[in-house]
């Protein structure tokens, strides 16, 4: 496990500065089953650094499940068994030696429904920072403010940091969750339909935010919204149920995916004939 924070400002700054390191997730023949019922099979794809990879496909093709494999949240789900490999850089994610807490700090996740904790706005951000070893009060406040500014929430909440995070609107809650994830300086961000529970206005705010985060993180975003995938993503991957099991049909650059899809299912899907 590489050292985190250690309460030293310098180290923290250095980690922020080395953000340009090329992290890359490589997924090799990934399979997932819940209580021996297969959900995903034979998924192989690469997540490119500093790009947005959109994962599209009809409901129930295991898109969200795929995300939970990437940060091993599957460990918390009873009856989930994973096969295949995922590499984060040189590290094999499923190896028993993997430090889970470090992994999840390096791969952050945002859920479909905003998931602020029932604390104040401030404490929502403070608890994870402290748990990851940042103790210096002034530094904590600085990191908090930076994160809130990055998600465009600082001006809206700076006078009520002590109010419950649950008093925020849905869009604000989602941005708070994004601030909470990015302040830990992850390399990869997993977004599970981050806009689908929001009203159109908040949704576009969050979408803008995602595009702005592109050059700092590798983003994997599940979305049902093809138009959004087209607007935002650099690469699009289509998951499709084959005999009830989610499989990767095609992964290609966004333009090619929509203009010149290679697979006939993709063609039918992007033209709205299927799915």
């Amino acid at each position: 496990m590489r050292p985190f924070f250690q309460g030293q400002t310098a180290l923290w700054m250095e980690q922020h500065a080395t953000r340009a390191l090329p992290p890359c997730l490589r997924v090799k023949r990934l399979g997932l089953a819940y209580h021996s019922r297969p959900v995903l099979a034979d998924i192989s794809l690469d997540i490119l650094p500093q790009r947005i990879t959109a994962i599209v496909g009809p409901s129930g093709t295991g898109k969200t499940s795929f995300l939970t494999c990437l940060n091993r949240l599957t460990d918390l789900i009873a009856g989930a068994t994973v096969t295949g490999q995922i590499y984060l850089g040189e590290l094999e994610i499923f190896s028993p030696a993997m430090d889970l807490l470090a992994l999840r700090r390096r791969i952050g996740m945002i859920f479909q429904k905003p998931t602020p904790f029932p604390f104040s706005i401030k404490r929502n951000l403070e608890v994870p920072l402290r748990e990851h070893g940042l103790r210096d009060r002034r530094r904590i406040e600085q990191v908090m403010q930076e994160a809130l500014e990055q998600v465009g929430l600082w001006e809206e909440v700076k006078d009520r940091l002590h109010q419950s995070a649950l008093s925020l609107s849905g869009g604000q809650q989602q941005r708070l969750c994004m601030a909470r994830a990015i302040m830990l300086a992850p390399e990869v961000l997993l977004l599970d339909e981050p806009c689908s529970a929001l009203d159109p206005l908040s949704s576009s705010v969050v979408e803008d935010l995602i595009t702005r985060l592109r050059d700092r993180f590798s983003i994997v975003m599940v979305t049902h919204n093809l138009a959004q995938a087209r607007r935002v993503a650099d690469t699009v991957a289509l998951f499709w149920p084959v005999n009830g099991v989610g499989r990767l049909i095609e992964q290609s650059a966004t333009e090619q995916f929509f203009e010149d899809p290679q697979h006939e299912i993709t063609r039918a899907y992007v033209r709205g004939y299927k799915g």
Partner: protein
Amino acid sequence: MQDIHGKSRARLEETLAALGAWIAAILVLGVFGWILGDLLWHGWPSLSWEFVFDAPRDAGRAGGIGPILVSTALLLGICLAVALPIGFGAALCLAELAARAAWPTRLIRRSLDILAGMPSILFGLFGNAVFCVILGFGFSLLSGGLTLACMVLPLVIRSADEALRSVPAQYRLSAAALGLSRGATLWHLIVPAALPGVLVGFTLAVGRALAETAALIFTSGYVDRLPHSLLDSGRALSVHIFDLAMNVPGGDAHAYASALVLVTMLLAINLVASRLGSRWSLCRMSSI
């Protein structure tokens, strides 16, 4: 025509249902009011500060219930000191176990439910055999308190367990996704979110322990002196009431007064529990 008929019939059914509900409510309230009124009527004249603080004389016909309140408090103290940490710990283990071992958890929960419904006299006999005889504590506050702890433990575990389980699963997932350790998740998130519910369970357990008689007759004994150590025998308030009412001719007035004190304590505890409970549900609603 048929429609109108159907409507008036529905209205009749509604009226009958409302009537039934009202009768049930009045019956419940009536019985409660009757008991309380009876206690106040017979008990109030004997009630005074002297009664609360003095030692009983003449087998309880005269004097007060001072030492008995002390014994009751000690019994309750031992019971809670043992049952709360063990109960809460067990509930935490159970909640954590649930994700990985579904059927053992179910089995444990079912067993706890059965234990919680067990007649207290069985706990009394168990406590007598284990604490008084095998462990050699004799008839003592320690034996009684430990027996009470055994008795309320299933209640404490199950209520804490329910409270922990009702914390949204999403909290655990999002905490894990932030790289929070399991300990940190429990400490910062799960336990605080479950705490009000846990407190309600604890308060109910206190109420149950306070009202217990049968289990204590076999374990903490009858002696109405002020206890000097935990290994002394001591008389709980409920045992005192039982004794005055059944074994002491002419003890009725003081039995009533003691009962009034006990009921007042129980009411106070229930009030606290319902307060905490409503605050809890408010918290939960606002978190959805």
